[in-house]
């Protein structure tokens, strides 16, 4: 009974305008599919198990089954422009529980990558981590912190060994990796 009721829910209505939207972008769809390995969105049968356990559904109305459906149909530009993919908390429940091995969260990561490539809506702070890694190998340098009694401490004061950043060779190779990805 439940399955029938759910099957009656049409494909996503909240991100695309079904009356005026342009045609699906099939080239972009192929590009997306190439990024996600075995977890193909077209295997989804819209059971909505992913969305039912999604914590970001409760908080931000993220609907992983909709993202899967739209990607599968080829409405990639619309998905990227909506910014909805940045609402995923990466809890991986959808990947664990999908009966069709679709892994909506992997699709979300692939869509975020596409958003970066196409210079679409990307929260700036995500790009900051990349520049920090290029510069220091890590997302940040060791920070000063305070105890509960507001004493200032750092690694040295806490008797922790010296922290080392990776050498120049690392940076050169990592630059190359980023270039490879552009091709």
């Amino acid at each position: 009974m439940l399955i029938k009721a759910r099957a009656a829910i049409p494909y996503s209505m909240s991100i695309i305008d079904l009356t005026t939207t342009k045609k699906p972008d099939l080239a972009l769809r192929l590009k997306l599919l190439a990024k996600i390995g075995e977890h193909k969105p077209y295997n989804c049968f819209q059971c909505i198990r992913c969305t039912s356990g999604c914590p970001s559904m409760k908080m931000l109305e993220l609907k992983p089954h909709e993202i899967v459906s739209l990607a599968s149909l080829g409405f990639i530009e619309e998905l990227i422009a909506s910014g909805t993919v940045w609402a995923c908390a990466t809890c991986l429940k959808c990947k664990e529980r999908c009966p069709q091995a679709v892994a909506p969260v992997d699709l979300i990561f692939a869509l975020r990558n596409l958003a970066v490539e196409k210079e679409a809506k990307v929260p700036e702070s995500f790009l900051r981590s990349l520049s920090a890694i290029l510069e220091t190998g890590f997302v940040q340098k060791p920070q000063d912190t305070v105890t509960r009694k507001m004493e200032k401490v750092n690694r040295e004061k806490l008797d922790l060994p010296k922290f080392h950043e990776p050498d120049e060779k690392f940076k050169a190779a990592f630059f190359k990796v980023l270039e490879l990805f552009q091709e």
Partner: protein
Amino acid sequence: MKVAVYWGCLIPTVQYGYEMSVRAVMPQLGLELVELNNVSCCGTPIKSVNMFAALYLAVRNLAIAEKTGLDDLLLPCNGCYLSLSEAKHLLSQDGKLKERINNILKEENLQYEGSIKIWHTINLLHDLAGEERMREVVKHPLNGLKLAVHYGCHILRPSTFQPIDDSENPKKMDELVEWLGAKSIPYPEKLDCCGYMLLLSHPDAALTFTGLKLKAVQDWGADALVVSCPSCQMMFDMRQKSSGATTGAKLNLPVLYYTQLLGLAMDISTERLGLNLNRSPIDELLQKVGLISTATSP
């Protein structure tokens, strides 16, 4: 027994309490930590920007760990554990991808085989140290404490990547807590996410995740929440005030790493365990286990 250790970004740059407590407890269990040279970030923070670059970083760190010739690698951070276990999984399935990455690694004289076994703190203590050894090192049993454990998402799911325990019904961290004499309470919110990964794009929602879970744990009557991931600690411990403000809840719950708890049971001083760095009301917990005398002289 020697175990290589990879700390990642958050632990050695800001979550010093985790690093200090891991360093303090492991030798007592006969586990000698071997540091890695020239490692970098694990890739998780840039997965949203460039999945391939993230994977490359994960594999590179694994290759460096393999160079030590050791059989075992400890990853105390859940994010690193996911990133490196995913890399192992993907490369074991795809020979071409492995070759492609190894070609780049060659420039740094590195090669990834896939030989080293990876551990997270929780399964290392549970499976490798084991119950007998763990019970032996307890000098100050934590009898009477009611604790809630929080595994964190990235060591449990997906089950295809060698998670540390059953993905939907994990038990290891609960058992680890009980081996110290405390009680691990069952609670329905156990698998709920801390919200950390939403902090950059949706901070209010992230803090709501945190606040709701803390409120639930507090309402179930737990004396403290026990975590094993620097990201989760940065939410539940460091952001307890702001998450309380966001959700309108009055929060006052001690939050600490499992290794800090274990250290207390081993009678290691609170300073060596970095417990004076936790932001949540740890002193209340120390009082309950009769350790307040050491707590008042940090």
